[in-house]
């Protein structure tokens, strides 16, 4: 390995610290902006009902063996009969989320707002970091690392001879982007801290189609074999009591 690089203290004062401070400030700012823009939307009764229905049907499937066969069959019929079962979605009514989005401008608006509050500051800061701070070796980790960490820590410097424990400025930006959650939860309160990774997950969760999950729930309910667990309990109770009487 090459001899140790000496990092200029000016880099610390003008790259490392400003970058972290800016990231924190942007996080706080974004929190308040998104709080301002958040529209208090009233959930649709039908969607709430479908969600609850799925929970109930899932409970039925999971705990089917705890109720008498007759009750189970009655419930299954209630959910699954072809005419007016709760889990049956009439064919014409099943609308896909895309069409729903076009019919409801509010939904598209919400999406936009969410996107705006997330993507715009991110691209801006990334561009800013790239413009001002590209190519700096900003910090050094006090322990050696293997080569695999190179892409994580030395994003933006294409030198394979530099020791892996040096962190480039762009990587420092990424580390801050994903690692400041703990700090935000301190500043903004426990439940307000939301880092970008989580937001991205939420985004991908969009496009959830309730009618599809209703259908899936119906199919799995159809194939449940009811095996009443209670008769076994008598023997177990006997064993318990015997143990107790001893």
């Amino acid at each position: 390995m090459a001899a140790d690089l000496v990092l200029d203290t000016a880099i610390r004062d003008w790259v490392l610290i400003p970058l972290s401070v800016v990231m924190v400030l942007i996080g706080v700012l974004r929190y308040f902006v998104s709080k301002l823009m958040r529209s208090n939307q009233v959930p649709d009764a039908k969607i709430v009902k479908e969600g609850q229905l799925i929970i109930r049907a899932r409970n039925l499937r999971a705990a089917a063996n705890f109720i008498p066969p007759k009750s189970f069959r009655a419930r299954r019929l209630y959910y699954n009969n072809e005419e007016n079962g709760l889990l049956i979605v009439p064919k014409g009514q099943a609308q896909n989320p895309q069409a729903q989005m076009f019919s409801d401008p509010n939904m598209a608006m919400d999406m936009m707002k969410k996107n705006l509050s997330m993507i715009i500051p991110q691209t801006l800061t990334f561009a800013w970091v790239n413009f001002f701070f590209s190519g700096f070796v900003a910090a050094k980790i006090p322990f050696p690392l293997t080569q695999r960490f190179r892409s994580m820590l030395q994003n933006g410097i294409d030198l394979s001879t530099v020791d892996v424990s040096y962190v480039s400025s762009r990587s420092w930006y990424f580390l801050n982007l994903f690692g400041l959650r703990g700090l935000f939860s301190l500043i903004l309160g426990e439940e307000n801290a939301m880092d970008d990774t989580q937001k991205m997950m939420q985004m991908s969760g969009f496009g959830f189609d309730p009618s599809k999950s209703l259908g899936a729930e119906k199919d799995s309910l159809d194939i449940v074999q009811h095996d009443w667990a209670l008769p076994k309990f008598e023997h177990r109770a006997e064993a318990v009591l015997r143990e107790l009487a001893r």
Partner: protein
Amino acid sequence: MVSKTEETQLNRLENQVDNGGGGAWEYLCLVRKLKVRRSEKVLKYGLSILNDLKKRSGLGSEEWTLYEQVAIAAMDCQSLDVAKDCIRLLRKAFPESKRVGRLEAMLLEAKGSWAEAEKAYSSFLEENPLDQVIHKRRVAMAKAQGNISGAIEGLNKYLEIFMADHDAWRELAEIYVSLQMYKQAAFCYEELILSQPTVPLHHLAYADVLYTLGGLENLQTAKKYYASVIDLTGGKNTRALFGINLNVLTPAFQCTSAIGQLAKGRNKEDKESLELQSLAATALEKDYKQRAPEKLSLLSTALKSLKVSS
């Protein structure tokens, strides 16, 4: 449901606060988190914090949460003046808030001005028809007025949308039991068992309802559920032990099973349940000996009379 560890923690904190050991705020937080009903204590300790300027300002914005908690507790204890003061302060701090509006409506309800409270609640519902708390308040109000059928109607409407809310199912089941509508109650208890299959209390209540309904099939099912309660509680539930005794020794059960004795399988099952009954009886006797020896004679005569009558 409050889990065992949480309950012990709560009791420990309560003890500590009762004996002047401090930690009142932690106690109040825990009460709020577990949603348990300790209104008198909440009122007492919450007020002592609110009246102490230094402690109150130490809470920061949590102060308002405490005001809300104390207001609700005060309404529960019929200290309406305290509730009124709390709500007035909250109103001053949040002039537009719906949450405070809800508290105001609850105050009306606590005063007994049903019509006005109803009007306030329905106006809230018009704005947001999916507000669970307000739906529940309306049911509670109907129940408080003695309008049981109204309460049932409200609960049914609520459960049509929020059908996974087991607390509402339990409330409905209890109302049905109080009206002796056992079939409906049995349905509700089945629903409860489905959503929380390991809670023995639901099994027990279901068994009670089935036993009350009567008929051979129901009795047999009830016996199974009593057995499951015994299993789930490790034989510690006195009511279930009695249930088994009553159930197996019920004249109806004996009679009909005597008819069915021709079938061999039935016969075997009968023997088994008799064994279960005698085991339950010994467990009961043991339990009584340990915890209430002076009532042991009562128990043995009761058990004997059951046997004789069968």
